[in-house]
Protein backbone atom coordinates (compact mmCIF):
# COMPACT_ATOMS: atom_id res chain seq x y z
CA UNK A 1 0.00 0.00 0.00
CA UNK A 2 2.97 2.32 0.50
CA UNK A 3 3.41 2.01 -3.20
CA UNK A 4 -0.16 3.12 -3.85
CA UNK A 5 0.22 6.08 -1.48
CA UNK A 6 3.22 7.32 -3.44
CA UNK A 7 1.26 7.60 -6.66
CA UNK A 8 0.05 10.94 -7.94
CA UNK A 9 -3.68 11.67 -7.90
CA UNK A 10 -3.83 11.03 -11.60
CA UNK A 11 -2.14 7.66 -11.31
CA UNK A 12 -4.43 6.70 -8.45
CA UNK A 13 -7.38 7.45 -10.67
CA UNK A 14 -6.08 5.08 -13.30
CA UNK A 15 -5.64 2.32 -10.74
CA UNK A 16 -9.16 2.85 -9.40
CA UNK A 17 -10.67 2.93 -12.88
CA UNK A 18 -9.10 -0.38 -13.85
CA UNK A 19 -9.99 -1.90 -10.50
CA UNK A 20 -13.63 -1.00 -11.15
CA UNK A 21 -13.47 -2.35 -14.68
CA UNK A 22 -11.59 -5.57 -13.97
CA UNK A 23 -14.58 -7.88 -13.45
CA UNK A 24 -16.72 -6.28 -16.20
CA UNK A 25 -13.88 -6.43 -18.73
CA UNK A 26 -13.42 -10.12 -17.93
CA UNK A 27 -17.17 -10.63 -18.26
CA UNK A 28 -17.43 -8.95 -21.65
CA UNK A 29 -14.37 -10.80 -22.85
CA UNK A 30 -15.50 -14.26 -21.78
CA UNK A 31 -19.30 -14.00 -22.14
CA UNK A 32 -19.59 -11.71 -25.17
CA UNK A 33 -16.45 -11.51 -27.32
CA UNK A 34 -15.09 -15.02 -27.00
CA UNK A 35 -18.49 -16.61 -27.84
CA UNK A 36 -18.90 -14.29 -30.83
CA UNK A 37 -15.60 -15.45 -32.25
CA UNK A 38 -16.40 -19.01 -31.33
CA UNK A 39 -19.75 -18.89 -33.16
CA UNK A 40 -18.02 -17.69 -36.32
CA UNK A 41 -15.36 -20.38 -35.92
CA UNK A 42 -17.88 -23.19 -35.43
CA UNK A 43 -19.75 -22.04 -38.52
CA UNK A 44 -16.79 -23.29 -40.58
CA UNK A 45 -16.77 -26.68 -38.88
CA UNK A 46 -18.77 -29.85 -38.94
CA UNK A 47 -19.66 -30.94 -35.44
CA UNK A 48 -22.54 -32.84 -33.84
CA UNK A 49 -21.42 -32.29 -30.19
CA UNK A 50 -20.23 -35.89 -29.73
CA UNK A 51 -17.90 -36.55 -32.62
CA UNK A 52 -14.77 -34.71 -33.67
CA UNK A 53 -14.79 -31.14 -34.92
CA UNK A 54 -13.63 -31.09 -38.50
CA UNK A 55 -12.88 -28.11 -40.69
CA UNK A 56 -15.20 -27.90 -43.61
CA UNK A 57 -14.55 -24.41 -44.87
CA UNK A 58 -17.63 -22.90 -46.44
CA UNK A 59 -19.59 -26.17 -46.61
CA UNK A 60 -22.14 -25.09 -44.01
CA UNK A 61 -22.87 -21.91 -45.90
CA UNK A 62 -23.12 -23.72 -49.21
CA UNK A 63 -25.47 -26.26 -47.69
CA UNK A 64 -27.54 -23.43 -46.21
CA UNK A 65 -27.93 -21.52 -49.45
CA UNK A 66 -28.88 -24.72 -51.27
CA UNK A 67 -31.47 -25.63 -48.62
CA UNK A 68 -35.04 -24.86 -49.74
CA UNK A 69 -36.16 -24.81 -46.09
CA UNK A 70 -33.69 -22.01 -45.41
CA UNK A 71 -35.13 -19.87 -48.21
CA UNK A 72 -38.65 -20.56 -46.95
CA UNK A 73 -37.56 -19.53 -43.44
CA UNK A 74 -35.69 -16.50 -44.78
CA UNK A 75 -38.84 -15.38 -46.56
CA UNK A 76 -40.99 -15.95 -43.45
CA UNK A 77 -38.58 -13.88 -41.35
CA UNK A 78 -38.91 -10.98 -43.78
CA UNK A 79 -42.69 -11.36 -43.93
CA UNK A 80 -42.75 -10.94 -40.13
CA UNK A 81 -40.63 -7.83 -40.56
CA UNK A 82 -42.45 -6.32 -43.53
CA UNK A 83 -45.90 -6.83 -42.01
CA UNK A 84 -45.03 -6.24 -38.37
CA UNK A 85 -42.97 -3.07 -38.52
CA UNK A 86 -45.24 -0.90 -40.72
CA UNK A 87 -48.44 -2.07 -39.04
CA UNK A 88 -47.18 -1.48 -35.54
CA UNK A 89 -45.62 1.85 -36.56
CA UNK A 90 -48.81 3.23 -38.13
CA UNK A 91 -51.16 1.91 -35.45
CA UNK A 92 -49.02 3.11 -32.55
CA UNK A 93 -48.54 6.54 -34.12
CA UNK A 94 -52.28 6.86 -34.77
CA UNK A 95 -53.12 5.98 -31.18
CA UNK A 96 -50.36 8.16 -29.71
CA UNK A 97 -51.38 11.13 -31.86
CA UNK A 98 -54.97 11.00 -30.65
CA UNK A 99 -54.13 10.02 -27.08
CA UNK A 100 -51.86 13.06 -26.92
CA UNK A 101 -54.82 15.31 -27.70
CA UNK A 102 -57.07 13.69 -25.10
CA UNK A 103 -57.16 15.06 -21.57
CA UNK A 104 -60.14 13.25 -20.04
CA UNK A 105 -58.93 10.10 -18.22
CA UNK A 106 -55.67 10.34 -20.14
CA UNK A 107 -53.73 8.28 -17.60
CA UNK A 108 -56.32 5.53 -17.57
CA UNK A 109 -56.40 5.22 -21.36
CA UNK A 110 -52.62 5.18 -21.49
CA UNK A 111 -52.60 2.42 -18.89
CA UNK A 112 -54.97 0.29 -21.00
CA UNK A 113 -52.70 0.55 -24.02
CA UNK A 114 -49.52 -0.06 -22.07
CA UNK A 115 -50.67 -3.07 -20.05
CA UNK A 116 -49.92 -5.71 -22.74
CA UNK A 117 -46.27 -4.64 -22.74
CA UNK A 118 -45.95 -5.91 -19.16
CA UNK A 119 -47.07 -9.44 -20.05
CA UNK A 120 -44.83 -12.39 -20.81
CA UNK A 121 -44.71 -13.41 -24.46
CA UNK A 122 -44.97 -17.10 -23.61
CA UNK A 123 -48.08 -16.66 -21.45
CA UNK A 124 -49.78 -14.50 -24.06
CA UNK A 125 -48.85 -16.85 -26.90
CA UNK A 126 -50.82 -19.57 -25.07
CA UNK A 127 -53.76 -17.23 -24.49
CA UNK A 128 -53.91 -16.32 -28.19
CA UNK A 129 -53.42 -19.92 -29.15
CA UNK A 130 -56.59 -20.71 -27.22
CA UNK A 131 -58.41 -17.80 -28.94
CA UNK A 132 -57.51 -19.29 -32.31
CA UNK A 133 -58.83 -22.84 -31.68
CA UNK A 134 -61.76 -24.09 -33.78
CA UNK A 135 -65.33 -24.23 -32.44
CA UNK A 136 -66.33 -25.10 -29.72
CA UNK A 137 -63.06 -24.20 -27.98
CA UNK A 138 -61.59 -21.05 -29.44
CA UNK A 139 -62.90 -17.64 -28.48
CA UNK A 140 -62.65 -16.04 -31.93
CA UNK A 141 -64.44 -18.83 -33.76
CA UNK A 142 -67.10 -19.07 -31.05
CA UNK A 143 -67.63 -15.36 -31.45
CA UNK A 144 -67.90 -15.65 -35.24
CA UNK A 145 -70.32 -18.56 -34.98
CA UNK A 146 -72.74 -16.57 -32.79
CA UNK A 147 -73.12 -14.27 -35.81
CA UNK A 148 -73.35 -17.18 -38.21
CA UNK A 149 -70.06 -16.27 -39.87
CA UNK A 150 -68.13 -19.29 -41.21
CA UNK A 151 -65.17 -20.59 -39.24
CA UNK A 152 -61.69 -19.29 -39.87
CA UNK A 153 -58.88 -21.81 -39.75
CA UNK A 154 -56.16 -19.83 -37.99
CA UNK A 155 -53.22 -21.92 -36.88
CA UNK A 156 -53.66 -24.95 -39.15
CA UNK A 157 -53.62 -23.02 -42.37
CA UNK A 158 -50.43 -22.31 -44.27
CA UNK A 159 -51.69 -18.87 -45.24
CA UNK A 160 -53.38 -17.72 -42.03
CA UNK A 161 -50.97 -19.06 -39.43
CA UNK A 162 -48.21 -16.51 -39.90
CA UNK A 163 -50.41 -13.41 -39.53
CA UNK A 164 -52.20 -15.12 -36.64
CA UNK A 165 -48.90 -15.56 -34.83
CA UNK A 166 -47.73 -12.07 -35.72
CA UNK A 167 -50.86 -10.45 -34.23
CA UNK A 168 -49.99 -11.04 -30.54
CA UNK A 169 -46.39 -9.99 -31.21
CA UNK A 170 -47.60 -6.65 -32.61
CA UNK A 171 -50.18 -6.35 -29.84
CA UNK A 172 -47.60 -6.81 -27.08
CA UNK A 173 -45.24 -4.20 -28.51
CA UNK A 174 -47.78 -1.44 -29.23
CA UNK A 175 -47.80 -0.05 -25.69
CA UNK A 176 -44.08 0.62 -25.71
CA UNK A 177 -44.19 2.33 -29.10
CA UNK A 178 -47.17 4.47 -28.09
CA UNK A 179 -45.36 5.69 -24.98
CA UNK A 180 -42.23 6.52 -26.97
CA UNK A 181 -44.28 8.33 -29.63
CA UNK A 182 -46.10 10.36 -26.98
CA UNK A 183 -42.78 11.38 -25.43
CA UNK A 184 -41.65 12.45 -28.91
CA UNK A 185 -44.84 14.43 -29.47
CA UNK A 186 -44.43 16.18 -26.12
CA UNK A 187 -40.92 17.24 -27.05
CA UNK A 188 -42.13 19.29 -30.04
CA UNK A 189 -42.23 22.96 -28.96
CA UNK A 190 -45.76 24.33 -28.66
CA UNK A 191 -44.69 27.55 -30.36
CA UNK A 192 -44.53 25.75 -33.71
CA UNK A 193 -48.17 24.77 -33.39
CA UNK A 194 -49.16 28.24 -32.27
CA UNK A 195 -47.43 29.78 -35.27
CA UNK A 196 -49.26 27.34 -37.53
CA UNK A 197 -52.56 28.18 -35.89
CA UNK A 198 -51.99 31.91 -36.40
CA UNK A 199 -51.30 31.20 -40.06
CA UNK A 200 -54.55 29.24 -40.19
CA UNK A 201 -52.96 26.03 -41.42
CA UNK A 202 -55.12 22.89 -41.53
CA UNK A 203 -54.58 20.01 -39.09
CA UNK A 204 -53.45 17.76 -41.91
CA UNK A 205 -50.76 20.20 -43.02
CA UNK A 206 -49.60 20.65 -39.43
CA UNK A 207 -49.24 16.87 -39.17
CA UNK A 208 -47.34 16.61 -42.44
CA UNK A 209 -45.17 19.69 -42.22
CA UNK A 210 -44.48 20.00 -38.49
CA UNK A 211 -45.28 16.89 -36.48
CA UNK A 212 -43.89 14.16 -38.71
CA UNK A 213 -40.60 15.88 -39.66
CA UNK A 214 -39.89 16.77 -36.03
CA UNK A 215 -40.71 13.23 -34.94
CA UNK A 216 -38.09 11.77 -37.26
CA UNK A 217 -35.62 10.71 -34.53
CA UNK A 218 -38.46 8.95 -32.68
CA UNK A 219 -39.62 7.23 -35.87
CA UNK A 220 -36.07 6.08 -36.68
CA UNK A 221 -35.71 4.63 -33.18
CA UNK A 222 -39.04 2.80 -33.31
CA UNK A 223 -38.47 1.41 -36.81
CA UNK A 224 -35.01 0.07 -36.02
CA UNK A 225 -35.99 -1.23 -32.60
CA UNK A 226 -39.17 -2.99 -33.73
CA UNK A 227 -37.52 -4.38 -36.87
CA UNK A 228 -34.86 -6.08 -34.77
CA UNK A 229 -37.66 -7.52 -32.64
CA UNK A 230 -39.60 -8.92 -35.59
CA UNK A 231 -36.50 -10.35 -37.28
CA UNK A 232 -35.75 -12.23 -34.04
CA UNK A 233 -39.31 -13.46 -33.40
CA UNK A 234 -39.26 -16.80 -31.60
CA UNK A 235 -41.30 -17.05 -28.37
CA UNK A 236 -44.67 -16.56 -30.06
CA UNK A 237 -43.98 -18.95 -32.92
CA UNK A 238 -42.52 -21.65 -30.73
CA UNK A 239 -45.37 -21.57 -28.22
CA UNK A 240 -48.22 -21.35 -30.70
CA UNK A 241 -46.95 -24.27 -32.77
CA UNK A 242 -45.34 -26.58 -30.14
CA UNK A 243 -46.96 -29.67 -31.66
CA UNK A 244 -45.17 -28.94 -34.94
CA UNK A 245 -42.71 -26.06 -34.41
CA UNK A 246 -42.82 -23.56 -37.25
CA UNK A 247 -45.63 -25.43 -38.95
CA UNK A 248 -47.85 -26.12 -40.71
CA UNK A 249 -45.30 -27.07 -43.40
CA UNK A 250 -42.72 -24.55 -42.17
CA UNK A 251 -45.11 -21.75 -43.11
CA UNK A 252 -44.48 -19.86 -39.85
CA UNK A 253 -40.89 -20.83 -39.12
CA UNK A 254 -38.56 -17.85 -38.56
CA UNK A 255 -34.77 -17.97 -38.67
CA UNK A 256 -34.32 -18.15 -34.90
CA UNK A 257 -36.56 -21.21 -34.67
CA UNK A 258 -34.57 -22.89 -37.45
CA UNK A 259 -31.38 -22.13 -35.51
CA UNK A 260 -32.89 -23.57 -32.33
CA UNK A 261 -33.96 -26.78 -34.04
CA UNK A 262 -30.71 -27.28 -35.94
CA UNK A 263 -28.65 -26.76 -32.80
CA UNK A 264 -30.75 -28.35 -30.07
CA UNK A 265 -32.91 -30.92 -31.84
CA UNK A 266 -30.53 -32.13 -34.56
CA UNK A 267 -27.34 -31.08 -32.68
CA UNK A 268 -25.78 -29.98 -35.95
CA UNK A 269 -23.74 -27.24 -34.30
CA UNK A 270 -21.70 -26.14 -37.30
CA UNK A 271 -24.75 -25.74 -39.50
CA UNK A 272 -26.63 -23.89 -36.75
CA UNK A 273 -23.68 -21.56 -36.15
CA UNK A 274 -23.63 -20.69 -39.85
CA UNK A 275 -27.32 -19.78 -39.54
CA UNK A 276 -26.59 -17.51 -36.58
CA UNK A 277 -23.92 -15.73 -38.59
CA UNK A 278 -26.49 -15.16 -41.34
CA UNK A 279 -28.95 -13.83 -38.75
CA UNK A 280 -26.30 -11.43 -37.46
CA UNK A 281 -25.61 -10.17 -40.98
CA UNK A 282 -29.33 -9.79 -41.72
CA UNK A 283 -29.83 -7.70 -38.57
CA UNK A 284 -26.79 -5.59 -39.34
CA UNK A 285 -27.70 -4.93 -42.96
CA UNK A 286 -31.37 -4.19 -42.26
CA UNK A 287 -30.50 -1.75 -39.45
CA UNK A 288 -27.88 0.03 -41.56
CA UNK A 289 -30.23 0.35 -44.55
CA UNK A 290 -33.00 1.71 -42.34
CA UNK A 291 -30.70 4.23 -40.68
CA UNK A 292 -29.38 5.38 -44.03
CA UNK A 293 -32.82 5.76 -45.64
CA UNK A 294 -34.58 7.32 -42.67
CA UNK A 295 -31.81 9.70 -41.65
CA UNK A 296 -31.01 11.01 -45.08
CA UNK A 297 -34.32 10.60 -46.87
Amino acid at each position, binding site marked *: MTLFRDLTIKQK*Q*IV*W*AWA*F*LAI*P*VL*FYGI*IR*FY*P*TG*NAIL*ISFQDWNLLGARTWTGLDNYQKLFADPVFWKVFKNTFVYLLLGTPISLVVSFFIAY*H*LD*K*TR*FMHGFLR*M*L*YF*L*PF*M*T*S*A*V*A*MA*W*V*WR*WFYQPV*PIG*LFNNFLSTFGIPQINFLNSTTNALPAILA*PAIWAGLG*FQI*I*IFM*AGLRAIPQSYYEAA*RIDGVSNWTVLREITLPLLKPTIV*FIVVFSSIGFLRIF*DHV*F*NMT*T*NNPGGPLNSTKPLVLM*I*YETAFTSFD*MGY*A*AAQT*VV*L*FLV*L*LVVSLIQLRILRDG
Partner: protein
Amino acid sequence: MAATDDIRASSATLLEGGTPKRPANMGQYLRWALLFGGGILMVMPIAYMISTSLKWPHEVYNLKLIPEEPTIENYTYVLEDGRFFLWFFNSIVIALLTTLCNVIFDSLVGYTLCKFRFPGRYIVFIAILSTLMIPTEMLVIPWYLMSQQFGWLDSYWGIMFPGLMTAFGTFLMKQFFETVPDDFIEAARIDGLNELQIWWVVAMPLVKPALAALAIFVFLGNWTAFIWPLIVTNSVEMYTLPVGLASFGDEADVAWELIMTGAAISTIPTLIVFLIFQRFIIRGVVMAGLKG
Protein backbone atom coordinates in the same frame (compact mmCIF):
# COMPACT_ATOMS: atom_id res chain seq x y z
CA MET B 1 -59.17 47.57 -11.51
CA ALA B 2 -61.71 44.95 -12.46
CA ALA B 3 -61.48 45.93 -16.12
CA THR B 4 -57.69 45.61 -16.26
CA ASP B 5 -57.90 42.26 -14.47
CA ASP B 6 -60.29 41.03 -17.14
CA ILE B 7 -57.96 42.15 -19.87
CA ARG B 8 -55.05 40.50 -18.15
CA ALA B 9 -57.00 37.29 -17.74
CA SER B 10 -58.10 37.16 -21.34
CA SER B 11 -54.63 37.96 -22.64
CA ALA B 12 -53.32 35.20 -20.42
CA THR B 13 -55.69 32.67 -21.93
CA LEU B 14 -54.74 33.88 -25.38
CA LEU B 15 -51.07 33.33 -24.66
CA GLU B 16 -51.67 29.97 -23.06
CA GLY B 17 -54.06 28.17 -25.28
CA GLY B 18 -54.50 30.36 -28.33
CA THR B 19 -58.24 30.31 -28.91
CA PRO B 20 -60.34 30.64 -25.76
CA LYS B 21 -61.74 27.33 -24.60
CA ARG B 22 -64.83 26.32 -26.46
CA PRO B 23 -67.16 23.53 -25.44
CA ALA B 24 -66.00 20.05 -26.44
CA ASN B 25 -67.36 19.20 -29.86
CA MET B 26 -68.58 15.92 -31.31
CA GLY B 27 -65.15 15.17 -32.74
CA GLN B 28 -63.58 15.12 -29.32
CA TYR B 29 -66.28 12.85 -27.90
CA LEU B 30 -65.82 10.52 -30.84
CA ARG B 31 -62.06 10.52 -30.40
CA TRP B 32 -62.40 9.66 -26.73
CA ALA B 33 -64.94 6.91 -27.40
CA LEU B 34 -62.74 5.32 -30.07
CA LEU B 35 -59.65 5.49 -27.89
CA PHE B 36 -61.59 3.99 -25.01
CA GLY B 37 -62.93 1.20 -27.22
CA GLY B 38 -59.45 0.50 -28.56
CA GLY B 39 -58.03 0.43 -25.04
CA ILE B 40 -60.65 -2.07 -23.91
CA LEU B 41 -59.81 -4.26 -26.92
CA MET B 42 -56.14 -4.06 -25.97
CA VAL B 43 -56.73 -5.49 -22.49
CA MET B 44 -59.28 -8.08 -23.64
CA PRO B 45 -56.75 -10.93 -24.01
CA ILE B 46 -55.54 -10.29 -20.46
CA ALA B 47 -59.10 -10.02 -19.19
CA TYR B 48 -60.13 -13.29 -20.84
CA MET B 49 -57.05 -15.03 -19.50
CA ILE B 50 -57.89 -14.01 -15.93
CA SER B 51 -61.62 -14.65 -16.33
CA THR B 52 -61.05 -18.14 -17.76
CA SER B 53 -58.66 -18.99 -14.96
CA LEU B 54 -61.58 -18.35 -12.57
CA LYS B 55 -64.12 -20.50 -14.44
CA TRP B 56 -65.36 -24.04 -13.93
CA PRO B 57 -64.70 -26.36 -16.90
CA HIS B 58 -68.32 -26.24 -18.14
CA GLU B 59 -68.18 -22.44 -18.45
CA VAL B 60 -64.81 -22.14 -20.16
CA TYR B 61 -66.04 -22.07 -23.74
CA ASN B 62 -68.78 -19.54 -23.35
CA LEU B 63 -68.01 -15.98 -24.32
CA LYS B 64 -69.04 -14.33 -21.04
CA LEU B 65 -66.23 -12.31 -19.52
CA ILE B 66 -67.60 -12.51 -15.97
CA PRO B 67 -67.73 -16.11 -14.70
CA GLU B 68 -71.17 -17.14 -13.46
CA GLU B 69 -69.79 -18.99 -10.47
CA PRO B 70 -66.20 -17.82 -10.00
CA THR B 71 -63.86 -20.39 -8.49
CA ILE B 72 -60.24 -20.53 -7.44
CA GLU B 73 -60.29 -24.28 -7.99
CA ASN B 74 -57.92 -23.97 -10.97
CA TYR B 75 -55.36 -22.09 -8.89
CA THR B 76 -55.53 -24.63 -6.07
CA TYR B 77 -55.15 -27.44 -8.58
CA VAL B 78 -52.21 -25.87 -10.39
CA LEU B 79 -50.39 -24.83 -7.21
CA GLU B 80 -50.98 -28.12 -5.41
CA ASP B 81 -49.26 -29.82 -8.28
CA GLY B 82 -46.16 -28.05 -6.95
CA ARG B 83 -44.37 -27.41 -10.20
CA PHE B 84 -45.72 -23.90 -10.74
CA PHE B 85 -44.70 -23.05 -7.21
CA LEU B 86 -41.17 -24.14 -7.96
CA TRP B 87 -41.02 -22.38 -11.33
CA PHE B 88 -42.35 -19.20 -9.79
CA PHE B 89 -39.66 -19.38 -7.12
CA ASN B 90 -36.93 -20.05 -9.72
CA SER B 91 -38.09 -17.11 -11.85
CA ILE B 92 -38.21 -14.72 -8.89
CA VAL B 93 -34.76 -15.66 -7.62
CA ILE B 94 -33.18 -15.51 -11.06
CA ALA B 95 -34.82 -12.24 -12.04
CA LEU B 96 -33.95 -10.57 -8.72
CA LEU B 97 -30.32 -11.70 -8.63
CA THR B 98 -29.78 -10.71 -12.25
CA THR B 99 -31.38 -7.33 -11.64
CA LEU B 100 -29.19 -6.72 -8.59
CA CYS B 101 -26.07 -7.65 -10.53
CA ASN B 102 -26.99 -5.35 -13.41
CA VAL B 103 -27.79 -2.44 -11.12
CA ILE B 104 -24.38 -2.74 -9.47
CA PHE B 105 -22.11 -3.53 -12.40
CA ASP B 106 -23.81 -1.54 -15.16
CA SER B 107 -23.73 1.55 -12.99
CA LEU B 108 -20.15 0.92 -11.86
CA VAL B 109 -18.98 0.63 -15.46
CA GLY B 110 -21.15 3.53 -16.59
CA TYR B 111 -19.75 5.66 -13.76
CA THR B 112 -16.15 4.74 -14.50
CA LEU B 113 -16.50 5.46 -18.22
CA CYS B 114 -18.20 8.75 -17.45
CA LYS B 115 -16.14 10.19 -14.58
CA PHE B 116 -12.63 8.78 -14.91
CA ARG B 117 -9.92 9.71 -17.40
CA PHE B 118 -7.57 6.79 -17.98
CA PRO B 119 -5.73 5.11 -20.81
CA GLY B 120 -7.93 2.51 -22.53
CA ARG B 121 -11.16 4.31 -21.70
CA TYR B 122 -12.16 4.82 -25.28
CA ILE B 123 -11.38 1.24 -26.27
CA VAL B 124 -13.44 -0.19 -23.40
CA PHE B 125 -16.28 2.16 -24.34
CA ILE B 126 -16.29 1.12 -28.00
CA ALA B 127 -15.87 -2.56 -27.13
CA ILE B 128 -18.91 -2.58 -24.85
CA LEU B 129 -20.89 -0.50 -27.35
CA SER B 130 -20.14 -2.98 -30.12
CA THR B 131 -21.67 -5.87 -28.15
CA LEU B 132 -25.06 -4.18 -28.63
CA MET B 133 -24.96 -5.32 -32.25
CA ILE B 134 -24.47 -9.00 -31.47
CA PRO B 135 -27.81 -10.83 -31.23
CA THR B 136 -28.23 -13.22 -28.29
CA GLU B 137 -29.12 -15.99 -30.72
CA MET B 138 -25.61 -15.90 -32.11
CA LEU B 139 -24.17 -16.54 -28.66
CA VAL B 140 -26.47 -19.32 -27.42
CA ILE B 141 -24.49 -22.11 -29.09
CA PRO B 142 -21.11 -21.06 -27.60
CA TRP B 143 -22.81 -20.39 -24.23
CA TYR B 144 -24.30 -23.86 -24.33
CA LEU B 145 -20.93 -25.45 -25.10
CA MET B 146 -19.34 -23.42 -22.32
CA SER B 147 -22.04 -24.46 -19.85
CA GLN B 148 -21.60 -28.06 -20.85
CA GLN B 149 -17.85 -27.88 -20.36
CA PHE B 150 -18.01 -26.22 -16.95
CA GLY B 151 -21.04 -28.12 -15.68
CA TRP B 152 -23.30 -25.06 -15.64
CA LEU B 153 -26.16 -26.78 -17.45
CA ASP B 154 -29.38 -27.02 -15.50
CA SER B 155 -28.37 -24.59 -12.74
CA TYR B 156 -29.31 -21.07 -11.63
CA TRP B 157 -25.86 -19.87 -12.56
CA GLY B 158 -26.24 -21.38 -16.01
CA ILE B 159 -29.51 -19.54 -16.57
CA MET B 160 -28.19 -16.26 -15.19
CA PHE B 161 -24.62 -15.86 -16.39
CA PRO B 162 -25.27 -14.45 -19.87
CA GLY B 163 -27.34 -11.56 -18.50
CA LEU B 164 -25.34 -10.44 -15.47
CA MET B 165 -24.23 -7.26 -17.24
CA THR B 166 -25.73 -5.55 -20.25
CA ALA B 167 -24.31 -2.97 -22.62
CA PHE B 168 -27.74 -1.33 -22.73
CA GLY B 169 -27.72 -0.81 -18.95
CA THR B 170 -24.17 0.46 -19.01
CA PHE B 171 -25.00 3.17 -21.53
CA LEU B 172 -28.19 4.12 -19.78
CA MET B 173 -26.22 4.65 -16.57
CA LYS B 174 -23.37 6.43 -18.31
CA GLN B 175 -25.88 8.91 -19.74
CA PHE B 176 -27.30 9.60 -16.32
CA PHE B 177 -23.96 9.97 -14.55
CA GLU B 178 -23.29 12.84 -16.99
CA THR B 179 -25.91 14.77 -14.99
CA VAL B 180 -23.95 14.36 -11.74
CA PRO B 181 -21.77 17.47 -11.35
CA ASP B 182 -18.02 16.81 -11.13
CA ASP B 183 -17.86 19.30 -8.26
CA PHE B 184 -19.76 16.88 -6.02
CA ILE B 185 -17.20 14.20 -6.70
CA GLU B 186 -14.28 16.60 -6.16
CA ALA B 187 -15.79 17.78 -2.88
CA ALA B 188 -16.18 14.21 -1.67
CA ARG B 189 -12.59 13.48 -2.67
CA ILE B 190 -11.39 16.44 -0.60
CA ASP B 191 -13.48 15.16 2.30
CA GLY B 192 -11.34 12.04 2.16
CA LEU B 193 -13.78 9.49 0.71
CA ASN B 194 -12.20 6.86 -1.48
CA GLU B 195 -13.42 6.29 -5.03
CA LEU B 196 -15.60 3.33 -4.13
CA GLN B 197 -17.32 5.35 -1.43
CA ILE B 198 -17.78 8.32 -3.76
CA TRP B 199 -19.50 6.11 -6.32
CA TRP B 200 -21.75 4.37 -3.81
CA VAL B 201 -22.49 7.18 -1.34
CA VAL B 202 -22.38 10.30 -3.51
CA ALA B 203 -23.10 9.37 -7.12
CA MET B 204 -25.51 6.44 -6.84
CA PRO B 205 -28.22 8.26 -4.82
CA LEU B 206 -28.24 11.01 -7.44
CA VAL B 207 -29.22 8.64 -10.25
CA LYS B 208 -31.90 6.68 -8.39
CA PRO B 209 -34.58 7.22 -11.08
CA ALA B 210 -32.26 5.77 -13.70
CA LEU B 211 -31.39 2.85 -11.44
CA ALA B 212 -35.09 2.15 -11.02
CA ALA B 213 -35.67 2.31 -14.78
CA LEU B 214 -32.79 -0.09 -15.33
CA ALA B 215 -34.07 -2.43 -12.63
CA ILE B 216 -37.55 -2.52 -14.16
CA PHE B 217 -36.22 -3.31 -17.63
CA VAL B 218 -33.82 -6.00 -16.48
CA PHE B 219 -36.37 -7.62 -14.18
CA LEU B 220 -39.06 -7.71 -16.86
CA GLY B 221 -36.59 -9.00 -19.43
CA ASN B 222 -35.47 -11.85 -17.18
CA TRP B 223 -38.93 -12.66 -15.90
CA THR B 224 -40.15 -13.22 -19.46
CA ALA B 225 -36.88 -14.62 -20.92
CA PHE B 226 -37.52 -17.81 -22.84
CA ILE B 227 -35.00 -19.07 -25.36
CA TRP B 228 -31.89 -19.31 -23.17
CA PRO B 229 -33.63 -20.87 -20.10
CA LEU B 230 -35.28 -23.31 -22.54
CA ILE B 231 -31.88 -24.34 -23.87
CA VAL B 232 -29.89 -24.48 -20.64
CA THR B 233 -32.38 -26.26 -18.38
CA ASN B 234 -33.40 -29.86 -18.82
CA SER B 235 -34.89 -30.98 -15.53
CA VAL B 236 -38.40 -29.90 -14.62
CA GLU B 237 -37.25 -28.54 -11.24
CA MET B 238 -34.92 -26.00 -12.88
CA TYR B 239 -37.44 -24.53 -15.33
CA THR B 240 -38.36 -20.88 -15.10
CA LEU B 241 -42.03 -19.88 -15.38
CA PRO B 242 -42.08 -19.34 -19.17
CA VAL B 243 -40.28 -22.62 -19.86
CA GLY B 244 -42.48 -24.43 -17.36
CA LEU B 245 -45.62 -22.96 -18.87
CA ALA B 246 -44.55 -24.02 -22.35
CA SER B 247 -43.95 -27.60 -21.21
CA PHE B 248 -47.16 -27.63 -19.16
CA GLY B 249 -49.25 -26.40 -22.08
CA ASP B 250 -47.70 -28.98 -24.34
CA GLU B 251 -48.64 -31.96 -22.18
CA ALA B 252 -51.42 -34.09 -23.59
CA ASP B 253 -54.96 -33.38 -22.40
CA VAL B 254 -54.22 -30.31 -20.32
CA ALA B 255 -57.43 -28.31 -20.04
CA TRP B 256 -57.37 -24.77 -21.40
CA GLU B 257 -58.56 -23.27 -18.12
CA LEU B 258 -55.49 -24.73 -16.42
CA ILE B 259 -53.19 -23.30 -19.09
CA MET B 260 -54.90 -19.93 -18.63
CA THR B 261 -54.30 -20.25 -14.89
CA GLY B 262 -50.61 -20.91 -15.49
CA ALA B 263 -50.44 -17.97 -17.88
CA ALA B 264 -52.17 -15.77 -15.30
CA ILE B 265 -49.71 -16.84 -12.61
CA SER B 266 -46.81 -15.74 -14.78
CA THR B 267 -48.47 -12.47 -15.82
CA ILE B 268 -50.26 -11.17 -12.73
CA PRO B 269 -47.13 -10.30 -10.67
CA THR B 270 -45.78 -7.92 -13.32
CA LEU B 271 -49.25 -6.45 -13.86
CA ILE B 272 -49.63 -5.74 -10.14
CA VAL B 273 -46.20 -4.15 -9.97
CA PHE B 274 -47.13 -2.05 -12.98
CA LEU B 275 -50.46 -0.92 -11.55
CA ILE B 276 -48.77 0.18 -8.32
CA PHE B 277 -45.83 2.02 -9.89
CA GLN B 278 -47.55 3.02 -13.12
CA ARG B 279 -46.37 6.60 -13.58
CA PHE B 280 -42.94 5.71 -12.44
CA ILE B 281 -42.60 2.74 -14.78
CA ILE B 282 -43.84 4.67 -17.80
CA ARG B 283 -41.34 7.42 -17.08
CA GLY B 284 -38.65 4.77 -16.72
CA VAL B 285 -39.57 3.18 -20.03
CA VAL B 286 -39.32 6.53 -21.79
CA MET B 287 -35.95 7.23 -20.17
CA ALA B 288 -34.59 3.81 -21.02
CA GLY B 289 -36.04 3.92 -24.52
CA LEU B 290 -34.77 7.33 -25.46
CA LYS B 291 -31.47 7.50 -23.62
CA GLY B 292 -30.40 3.88 -23.70
